[in-house]
């Protein structure tokens, strides 16, 4: 039973990574940039929920809604101010700017909320599910997290496939210039992508902090990096890839924590990533691109 419960909590952690990875992978696919600040948007979302629910006593649902709105606006504003002026230049320049934004968000949170960890009250109040006569207990957070991940991945896949804006996203990610020539509003599509990615970050933040209730200005940083790893793992730019990568990452991390070493769990996660990339240089579901001579 031990193994099964580690596995399930691994899937739960992986679902959070997957939701964050979706934001990374969409932004990467469309804007061709590593949005390093994505992890910090998660942290901002968590603080918003913390303020709304724990400080002002609002119901969790309203708190989450506010967080989603705040993060969406934040994502669009960041894109507009910091990334848009650099569109079309070296991706490295945008990467550094994203790092600047990441520092900015962390330090703004540090100024407003202080360095001390805030204890986040879980927004989930579903009782734990007891299976096998109580030997296996699945917490409400775990069920909600996994459920949320599945719903989001399905919804997002449908959105990209069946709506006009979704198909515009595909077109822009395939060839930005051609998309523009076909009359697609490229700026609008990129802004929409950031909006969706940031809204997902807010949800991921809430789920993350419900499971791991220590909230600091640096909360989003490491999960952000791992989620990016997950996105690369699954094949960056691919929505199902982000989900597979995220869940695999969470499971590997949890199992190695349980059976090998807490200290080396991150090393193991990264080592698996390296092995995957060496065998399949564009990730599990990534497309192979070859240069035309």
């Amino acid at each position: 039973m031990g193994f099964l419960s580690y596995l399930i909590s691994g899937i739960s952690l992986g679902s959070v990574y997957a939701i964050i990875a979706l934001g990374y992978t969409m932004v990467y696919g469309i804007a061709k940039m590593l949005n390093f600040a994505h992890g910090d948007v998660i942290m901002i979302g968590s603080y918003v929920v913390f303020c709304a629910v724990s400080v002002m006593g609002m119901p969790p649902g309203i708190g989450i809604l506010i967080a989603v709105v705040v993060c969406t606006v934040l994502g669009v504003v960041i894109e507009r101010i910091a990334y848009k002026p650099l569109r079309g230049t070296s991706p490295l320049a945008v990467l550094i700017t994203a790092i600047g934004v990441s520092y900015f968000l962390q330090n703004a949170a540090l100024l407003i909320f202080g360095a001390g960890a805030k204890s986040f009250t879980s927004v989930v109040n579903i009782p734990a599910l007891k299976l096998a006569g109580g030997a296996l207990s699945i917490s409400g957070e775990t069920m909600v997290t996994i459920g949320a991940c599945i719903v989001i991945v399905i919804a997002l896949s449908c959105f990209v496939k069946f709506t006009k804006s979704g198909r515009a996203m595909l077109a822009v990610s395939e060839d930005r210039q051609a998309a523009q020539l076909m009359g697609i509003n490229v700026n609008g599509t990129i802004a929409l992508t950031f909006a969706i990615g940031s809204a997902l970050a807010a949800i991921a933040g809430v789920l993350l902090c419900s499971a791991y209730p220590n909230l600091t200005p640096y909360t989003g940083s490491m999960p952000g990096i791992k989620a990016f790893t997950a996105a690369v793992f699954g094949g960056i730019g691919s929505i199902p890839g982000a989900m597979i990568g995220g869940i695999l990452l969470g499971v590997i991390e949890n199992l190695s924590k349980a059976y090998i070493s807490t200290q080396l769990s991150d090393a193991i996660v990264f080592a698996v990533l390296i092995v995957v990339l060496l065998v399949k240089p564009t990730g599990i579901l990534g497309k192979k691109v070859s240069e035309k001579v």
Partner: protein
Amino acid sequence: MRKLSKTTVNNLITYGIVIFAYILVQILLATGSLSSLLEGLLVPLCTYVILAVSLNLTVGVLGELSLGHAGFMCVGAFSSAFFSVSMQEAIASDGLRFFLALLVGAVCAGLFGILIGIPVLRLRGDYLAIVTLAFGEIIKNIINAMYVGRDSSGFHFSMKDTTSLGMAEDGQVILKGPQGITGTPGDSNFTIGVILVLITVFIVLNLVHSRAGRAIMAIRDNRIAAESVGINITKYKMMAFAISAALAGVAGVLYAHNLSSLTATSRNFGYNQSIMILVFVVLGGMGNIRGSIISAVVLTLLPEMIRGVGDYRMLIYSVVLIAMMIFNWSPKIKNWREAHPLLKRRKRGEEA
């Protein structure tokens, strides 16, 4: 040839700036007008300059994005500190011991560079970036889980804890997992730091302006064309990567011998540090060695300079960083700068 003398002059200016800064600091030190805080920053400054210049070799000259530079620094720091602590009695001369420690650090980091480079350099762009980041984190994590001790019967090694080393009574634990290495001799100082900076700059500049450097830059500019004129891509990629790693190792040696206790944390050897070094390189200009030196110094000093604003300093730092990036790179602002002759900067390639 005109070209040769022009690059030589350019290089001499770069060395001159370093030497001038050194003399300036010595004067300030002699007159006592340097705060103790800034004095403590002098060796770290040299460390950052070496890191930035060496990373520029990978990112600017070779054109591959690496986010694991702090990992190589970590290897250099720990291998050399381990060497110095275990050889403290065997080698009496501080100078000789530090020189050997430098070699140990550089060689170990360089070997790691080759070890990592062999599989990794096949990947491109962002994939390479994430894998180097992963390697940096792995190195840091493994060092934090490693225990090495020595007694009369030799070295003992464990990945668990001190007791599992199973040492005799006279044993001494040198590397204590998360507590790292303590008692490293403080062999480095500002003067040594500046000498190492000059050596680093010398190696990188001379490499760039030579046959190997041209091959490396040719790979950066057009891999397929470089192959078509018979350049061995793997060889020169590895060369740039390994030299870059070895020099990061040198920075690690300098760093380790400036502290009495060395631990691997996410602050000093984590990906945040690697990113910080990358910021120096990009802001200073890709492939521009002098730019790397200046931006490493300015960006390290900036938070100290604006200490007056208290808690806001890191916030201001981040805003300055974003603003500088947009000012330097935005196509619109570039056009605007072109129209104002006073702001016009020299074109790429004319700089050192």
